């Protein structure tokens, strides 16, 4: 990997077009279904139920014709955070445990079966949330997700929330990610060609570190502001005068399948919530 390839390999929100049924679902359906699966995951304290939910998500992944391994590998960067969370719970949550059996105790650290269940559950829930987000972005383009959010939140426009502006701003921001990444690479190379380096300052002197990065940051800002100005003129030239009188081209419509998926996900939530899952504590 070259030292100058910065954001070219950003994989967050990467979209894999396999044209599966999951891909073809309305983005609103996928957003709502994800919401209900997340609700289901938080409404049970059962490790078994949580594992079953993960199994279900793997099934959906297969249905989307994406390799489960690929999704799991994408979760790896989050592993340190999950581990840190588990460690914290293990160290500090034991005191609040309701179980009577105690495996091991030292100072305020107290390991009980309930605690172990809680720690495992916490980690698994985090995995479910990350899994949901990757599955959503792997099967839905960013712009579709935003159109979905915009439509779902449209009623909030009436109470004065700038939903349309929020969606448009985000779409434009998404558009500029690859452009600015490339720009940053070019600037860094050009300054390196002039003998520049951007480290060299000790970490206890953040002022000097910031100063060393000015040759990158100043041009990046100047260019981005210039782009923004040009963008405004171009948008005005294309008759953009705000939300008023605007129609929408992107046509989101529910099919029978969409209703079915939404119905099933609500059902899933209720079932997971209401089932008396066996617990081992």
């Amino acid at each position, binding site marked *: 990997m070259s030292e100058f390839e910065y954001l070219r390999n950003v994989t967050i929100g990467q979209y894999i077009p396999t044209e599966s049924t999951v891909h073809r679902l309305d983005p609103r359906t996928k957003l709502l279904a994800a919401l209900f699966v997340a609700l289901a995951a938080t409404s049970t304290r059962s490790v078994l139920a949580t594992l079953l939910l993960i199994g279900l998500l793997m099934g959906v992944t297969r249905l989307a014709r994406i390799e489960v391994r690929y999704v799991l590998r994408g979760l790896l960067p989050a592993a340190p955070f999950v581990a840190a969370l588990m460690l914290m719970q293990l160290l500090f949550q034991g005191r609040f445990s309701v179980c009577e059996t105690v495996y091991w105790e030292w100072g305020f650290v107290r390991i009980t079966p309930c605690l172990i269940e809680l720690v495992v559950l916490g980690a698994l829930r985090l995995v479910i949330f990350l899994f949901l987000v990757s599955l959503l972005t792997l099967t839905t383009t960013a712009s579709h997700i935003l159109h979905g959010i915009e439509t779902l939140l449209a009623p909030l426009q009436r109470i004065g929330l700038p939903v349309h502006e929020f969606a448009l701003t985000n779409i434009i921001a998404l558009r500029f990610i690859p452009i600015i990444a490339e*720009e940053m690479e070019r600037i860094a190379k050009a300054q390196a060609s002039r003998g520049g380096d951007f480290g060299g300052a000790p970490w206890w002197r953040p002022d000097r570190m910031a100063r060393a990065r*000015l040759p990158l940051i100043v041009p990046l800002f100047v260019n981005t502001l210039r782009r923004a100005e040009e963008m405004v003129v171009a*948008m005005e030239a294309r008759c953009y005068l705000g939300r008023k009188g605007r129609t929408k081209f992107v046509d989101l419509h529910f099919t029978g399948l969409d209703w079915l998926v939404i119905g099933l996900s609500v059902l899933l939530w209720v079932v997971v919530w209401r089932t008396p899952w066996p617990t081992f504590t």
Partner: protein
Amino acid sequence: MAPLIRIESLHYTYQHEGGAVQALRGIDLTIEQGEYVVLLGHNGSGKSTLAKHLNALLLPTQGDVWINGWNTKERRHLREIRSTVGMVFQQPDNQIVATIVEEDVAFGPENLGLERQEIRRRVEWSLERVDMLPFRHRAPHLLSGGQKQRVCIAGVLAMQPSVLVLDEATAMLDPIGRQEVLEVARRLNREEGVTIIAVTHFMREAIEADRVLVLHDGKIALQGPPRTLFQQIDRLRALSLDVPHVSELAQALHRRFPAFPPDLLTPQEIAAAVIACCEERREESGERSARKDERGERNRTRDKFTLLTPHSSRPPLLALHHVAHYYMRGTPLEVKAIEDVNIEVHRGEIIGVIGHTGSGKSTAVQHFNGLLKAHEGEVWVLGQNLADPAVDLRAVRRAVGLVFQTPEAQLFEQYVGDDVAYGPRKQGLGPEEVRARVRRAMEAVGLPFEEFKDRITFSLSGGQMRRVAIAGVLALEPQVLVLDEPTAGLDPQARRQLMRHILDLHRQGVTLVIISHNMEELAEICDRIYVIADGRTVMAGTPAEVFSRAAELRAIGLDAPDMTQVAEALKAQGLLPADAVIYTLEQAEAAIAELLLAHGAALVEAPVGEQTR
């Protein structure tokens, strides 16, 4: 019927650095439906300012602009005016708002409040017009510059405008992208009756126009159809514009042979005129068929690419040997950027590197100062193999100065002097030495030290900023200067000025490597030229050797200089020997004059006294 566009005594003044600038000083102009108008002028002539008045992005300080009878000062007609006059700007990246092509094209119609069905119909229709329908679901950042600009045009067309204004829409594109955009404009004008107003400083783009307007100091200085306008060479030069070699050649020939038409605009027209002059004579002697056979034979032997070996046996100053480089190596997204590039640069040479966009030429030259490491092959710089970990890369980067495309986008200091001093200071030189180097570097690019060192960097003109950026590299006092598209986006005056400074550097002993799309420029100054296509060196040789393979160049998306194209057309007819070396104006003039003298019974050379009409 009222004209589509009517402008009456338009004045426009704006504030810049505390002073009032008169950008437009009395423009009177009418443009009718269906016209193709080109607005020419150097930077600061007011041409873009005028264009922005056509859809009320700017409003007159004095005078009026009427579009379809609507005065642009009346806000209530804003939507009608802006949907009547569509505008495409220089940077496609800064005009595309959506992450999917068709959604971007829909942006204008959405703003007009059209029904979804109608928007869909218009999106499809306009993408079809610019040949981008197959790309409708693509992400814009994966398209080429020309493709992106065509998406921008589609976005404007979807509002069904009567007028399409191209505000330097081709300035940042490579020759292929430029051709794509011009082709679309031409077709819209002919087939759909769309009025085209193209703002540009490329004279060649004016050839297609019905009418050319030359702006100078905020006024219309010249006006007329391209054929008559281009004959006023001295007048155009005085207005800081470039006259195409073709026009110069036609007029030079006309001066010597009054029967030769002076108003030709393309290499094809010149070739046709020369052939017509020689035709009668040749038909008499009946040698035509024999010549044709000979030509067929030649073409067949030249079918594949050839790598001509460089002549020198000295050890080169810089060398790439079979270099390959991959982007995002080791990920599933790995892309091969270059796979077999060979370049040798000797001390004191001027080397040109040409290739279409995406051919890998910029990637290749970034190996010369170790910014990129070769994944395969060897990079030699000043006798060192860069793969050797003991090599001091900072020293290499000081010895081989690399100037990127649009280097002015990398300036960061508030004052010019500080920006130029960045490199020497990083090198740890003392203040006296830094000052001396900054002075030398700035003066080498024509920026007097005392006058410019304390100027605010971002208040300079585009051409001046570019020279500051180059000075920033020169302050390292490199032995080799590698320039990636040094003149792209500059107007002819700034371009000539910059090239003069670059050649001065060469005279002072700096070895030059120049990447450029401007074949005329390279043909005149380079010792040798390397041609890169699809990540490989496919040709290398003197300008004469390389440009004599016009057909092969065309096959990889490059154009030979105009003069070579004229010569190739004549060689194809057997009028010039196949090995004739022609790539400059002087060579072409001499060769054709000789040809006409030999053939043209009807052409009499004008007596010396009557050379100018």
